[in-house]
């Protein structure tokens, strides 16, 4: 179970001239600061999949980066099983498995070595890492290419190894930032299958996406954020009930574009 309460994050604007036209018009720009995330709330229970929706620049990635502890929130709480991890980022890192769409592998290492490295960084012993890699190799069908250098992998192979790397330490929560963006249909299916496996294993999953068909297929709950604020929180049924049948219409309704 993971809960996010009143999360906020602002960035200092170094050079206002470099901002894009859209950013200059954004109401979140206040003086020297850009309030990227202002008030984001959601929660995700055991065995649930939460879809995080929002237009580009809404603050999705910043929110997920705060979840992963890469960025430190200015205010708000992130509770994993009731424990606040904002004050203890190391704890967050142990409990969360994080994968972003733009993630890469160390090309000169094999897939196995990539996964091993992160297993060791998580303090696992060699035996535990080996067992876990065997398990993940079965699950994700890695065994044919696991010992080759990852620079020659196809996009799908890379994504599979990245997934394995993100969950090598058996995290309590899995967070995925646009995990299917830029992937072909087969690689996308790998990610979808994997999320479903996690769901079966009762691991809560939070993922951001622009693909509403994925939301329909996977999600139990939906959160929409726009301009750094939560605009909708609820289960999939109440989300689709916002408009007649079309999730696209529902989405546009939540951000007030209809």
């Amino acid at each position, binding site marked *: 179970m993971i809960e996010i309460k009143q999360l906020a994050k602002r960035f200092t604007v170094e050079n206002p001239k470099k901002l894009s036209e859209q950013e200059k018009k954004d109401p979140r720009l206040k003086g020297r600061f850009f309030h990227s995330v202002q008030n984001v709330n959601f929660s995700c229970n055991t065995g649930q999949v939460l879809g995080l929706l929002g237009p580009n620049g809404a603050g999705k990635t910043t929110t997920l980066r705060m979840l992963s502890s890469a960025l430190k929130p200015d205010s708000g709480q992130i509770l994993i099983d009731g424990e606040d991890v904002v004050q203890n980022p190391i704890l967050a890192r142990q409990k969360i498995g994080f994968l972003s769409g733009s993630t890469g592998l160390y090309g000169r290492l094999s897939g196995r070595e990539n996964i091993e490295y*992160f297993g060791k960084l998580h303090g696992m012993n060699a035996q535990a890492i080996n067992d876990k890699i065997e398990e993940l190799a079965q699950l994700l069908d890695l065994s044919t290419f696991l010992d080759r250098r990852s620079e020659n992998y196809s996009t799908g192979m890379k994504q599979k190894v990245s997934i394995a790397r993100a969950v090598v330490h058996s995290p309590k929560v899995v967070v995925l930032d646009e995990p299917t963006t830029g992937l072909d249909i087969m690689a996308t299916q790998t990610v979808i299958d994997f999320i479903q496996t996690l769901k079966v294993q009762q691991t809560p999953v939070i993922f951001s996406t622009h693909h509403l068909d994925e939301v329909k297929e996977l999600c139990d709950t939906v959160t929409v954020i726009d301009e750094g604020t939560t605009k909708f929180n609820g289960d999939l049924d109440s989300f689709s009930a916002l408009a007649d049948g079309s999730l696209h219409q529902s989405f546009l309704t939540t951000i007030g574009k209809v």
Partner: protein
Amino acid sequence: MWLVFRKEIKELLRDRKTLFFMIALPLLLFPLIFGGVAYFSGKAIEKAQTKTLNYAIIGAENAPILSAKIAEVDDLSQVNTDLQSGNETGIKALITSETVDFVLVIPATFSDDILSVGQNTLTLYLNDAGLNMVQRRLNKIIDNIAESNRDQAFITLGISEEIQKGLLEPILVDKVSTADKRENIGEKIGGLIPYIIFILCLQGAMLPATDIGAGEKERGTLETLLISPIPRNQLVMGKFFTIAFAGVTSAMVTVGSLFVWGVVLSQGMAIELITEFMGAISAVDFLLMFAMLVPIVAIFAAVLLSMSIYAKSFKEAQGYMTPLVFIVIIPIILAMLPGIKLEGIYAWVPLMNVALAIKELIKGTMDYMALIPIFLSTTAIAGLLIAFCIYWFNREKVLFR
């Protein structure tokens, strides 16, 4: 920390491009460059010495013996001319048109009898801009005749050999240098060695530095690494040691290759000179040189890592690092200037003090008390820079630009 270090080194060793620049290039390229320069310059000198030269003599009849001696030489070939000695324009045109390589003008007053005419002046016209051995080759012949004329004159005057010496060189200064061979060579090459080592350390560290900072950002692996539960300072130190290690290795490989190839290429006497020279430097001095390099390499590694992690891409990182070479060169060049010694304020200036100290150690004239300011200043700066690096790695602004 060592986990990060081991992984970075493993990646580094698998990177053919970096390995090529770090190891293969110094091993093969340096001997090729130095050997090539030595070979071609040797060729050029040899050619200048043995090439057949065309010449003309004006007033040959005034000095028949001299003319005959010159004509006897195999690789000098005479061209006849009817130019007169006063016609300087004509003589110059003859040389410019490459009809002849030189023109020798013998005055009508020329005589082998010094006692009757005094000093004889010959005029040699030549194009002296390029590499040529004209004067040297001509002097060999003329000096012989001059000496025999002089001896003849001394005999006629009845002057004893002792007095002859006195007349030729009334006062002789016998120079005895108190500097031994080591100090002498050390002064000449001692400034160059820190220059080579510093630049090589920096260059060798640069490629891995771009790779493990900006490279991680560009490949999208940095974010994943930052959210692994390893304390940030250990992450920084692991990367820092990789860069430092690469810098030292690269420098040592190059210096080693230079030394080995130097011994191989130079033969006979030069080997004795090198072994004698190296033998004069004690093991403690060698250890001190290495010890002083440690904080220097630490300074380089910390600066490079800070630049690399700030950059958004490989290209940007290289842009930041290139000017660093020029900044490093300045204190080393200053240390090479004559008159700048390892004293007072200079002993506190980082890089410069180590460059001076290495020179002193090579010369064998080190004031060991100077080690205190050297180690204090370089270690303090290295420590500060490493601390800055760790602080830098904790800045969200730096990591997510």
